[in-house]
């Protein structure tokens, strides 16, 4: 380490070396420039805006001239009775997603793997991947054509069978279930891909040995397939925990209506409604910051726990 040993030499020499090295790569810097400019402007510049959470921001004053109010936006946020409702909704949806939305693709992948008719498997995959490519707007529209009172085919069927129409879409009791089913419908099939790949990577000798030992199919799934895909499951679970409060912003925004607001307001919709619709920028920023920090904490905590348990984390 010449630079460390000759620390008394002018520091300029180190930078001169770096500069020479950089000039060698000038074409590569030039190529990266548009993307670097993008990340600086659209990803890092808005982070200054997070300071608004500590202001009482109005757009009529310049940024630094706004009133600095310390953490009072946060105390106001926590004392808002609606905050508790929103937190409950977000947590409920997050837990439901972890309990159902997360394991279903794993189960589905194992089931697909047990299918031995390749044509059936291929067609099944083609069909269950499809909803992933459809926008949330179309998904919401399809839900209306399924469940709405006047044009939903479920209601048409109920009427056809002589029953009374059911107001699924404005019923607060079934809102969470509807959101969960919608998510499963759209993404569970697509979610199988990564587990199918993990299963395909398992050494077939393990299964052959198990067959020799007389293990049943269920036994083989529990003792071979699941343990072998556990690392994949763990990594995806950590990533999922890092986005624990991302419970489907566009989706819920589209399915929200005044009658279900009590159960349909989550962090993102609250930040959006307060911050952009009502123009209370500082409140919106405070809510968003709170949510981002919790996500980051969850990611780091789950990664640490997983590493302590002896598995590999995501970083």
């Amino acid at each position, binding site marked *: 380490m010449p630079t460390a040993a000759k620390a008394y030499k002018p520091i300029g020499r180190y930078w001169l070396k770096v500069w020479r090295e950089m000039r060698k790569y000038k074409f590569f810097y030039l190529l990266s420039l548009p993307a*670097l400019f993008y990340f600086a402007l659209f990803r890092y510049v*808005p982070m200054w805006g997070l300071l608004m959470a500590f202001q009482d921001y109005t757009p009529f004053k310049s940024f630094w001239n706004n009133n600095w109010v310390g953490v009072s936006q946060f105390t106001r946020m926590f004392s808002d009775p609606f905050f508790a409702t929103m937190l409950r909704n977000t947590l409920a949806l997050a837990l439901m997603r972890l309990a159902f939305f997360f394991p279903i693709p794993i189960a589905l992948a194992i089931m697909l793997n047990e299918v031995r008719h390749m044509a059936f498997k291929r067609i099944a995959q083609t069909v269950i991947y499809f909803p992933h490519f459809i926008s949330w707007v179309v998904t919401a529209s399809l839900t209306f054509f399924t469940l709405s009172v006047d044009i939903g085919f479920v209601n048409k*069927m109920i009427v*056809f069978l002589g029953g009374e129409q059911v107001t699924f879409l404005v019923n607060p009791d079934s809102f969470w279930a509807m959101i969960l089913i919608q998510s499963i419908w759209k993404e569970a099939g697509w979610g199988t891909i990564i587990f199918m790949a993990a299963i395909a990577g398992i050494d077939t000798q393990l299964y052959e040995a198990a067959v020799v030992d007389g293990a049943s199919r*269920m036994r083989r799934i529990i003792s071979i397939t699941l343990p072998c895909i556990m690392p994949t499951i763990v990594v995806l679970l950590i990533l999922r925990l890092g986005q624990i409060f991302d419970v489907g912003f566009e989706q819920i925004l*589209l399915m929200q209506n005044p009658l279900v607001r009590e159960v349909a307001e989550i962090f993102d919709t609250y930040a959006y409604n307060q911050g952009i619709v009502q123009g209370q920028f500082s409140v919106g920023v405070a809510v968003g910051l709170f949510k981002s920090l919790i996500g980051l904490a969850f990611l780091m905590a789950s990664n640490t726990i997983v590493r302590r348990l002896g598995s590999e984390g995501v970083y």
Partner: protein
Amino acid sequence: MEGKFSIGDAINYLVIFIFGFLCIFPFLYVFSISFTDPDVYIPLKFTVFPEKFSIRAYTWIIGTDSFINAMKSSVFVTVAGTILNLIVTFTAAYGLSRKEMPGNRLIMALITFTLVFSAGIVPNYILIKDLHMINSYSSIILPVLTNAWSLVVVRNFMLELPRELEEAARIDGCNDLQVFARVVLPLSGAVIATFTLFFAVAHWNSYFNTMIYITKSSKWTLPLLVKSMVVDSGAIGYAGGAGVGGDQKSVPQETIKMATIVLSMLPVIILYPFLQKYFVKGVLVGAVKG
């Protein structure tokens, strides 16, 4: 392994079949009703196949200015957005593929950080407003010009390319730009195809940014039009779309809405065989590193 078809197999096949059927049924239903002839259409009557076939709902919606405008906007945003996505992502992925370049690790760390932490909805909105991009299509193209995940995946691919090929091209007298254009890009064909589809589908389906940044209904893209026609009137049961007005007595609302949805999905349906193939590849390439 074993040849016989057990009860377990039967249950397994049945569950997969039901799940698959539920995935596809709403599409078949919408598709079928959209072709119902207005003369045989009866509200609240449950039908799966139209008694009389007609494309009048389609000719009606294609005849409206709002649909044509939305279609044009969607095509413009998707084509322009995807081209810019590809340029910015692939140049940067190659540019950052020299690990020994000073600052590379710092730059990659800063880019990866945006995967786990973003400023949030409000600061982004204020930035777009301060840049005077509201109601300009730049507001829905530039904020998603590239993204950390795509950049990392494409860069990983570029890192795997054998350096010897580039060196050989240099010895043959290619300059840096020629190496990139004539050696690196031609070798990236499959990755370019994958990401073209990723970016195009994302633009075509994009909703939230368009909703908050494009406030003039004359500049709406298809998702906004569909939302105003179907979702805004859907939950409560009020029939009437803000986006489409005019005489609708001759053609029922329901079939028009369904025809609009089918048309808005058309490019995705046509491209689906390619989408499936390349997307699966893309997901697996991305999965290699977390």
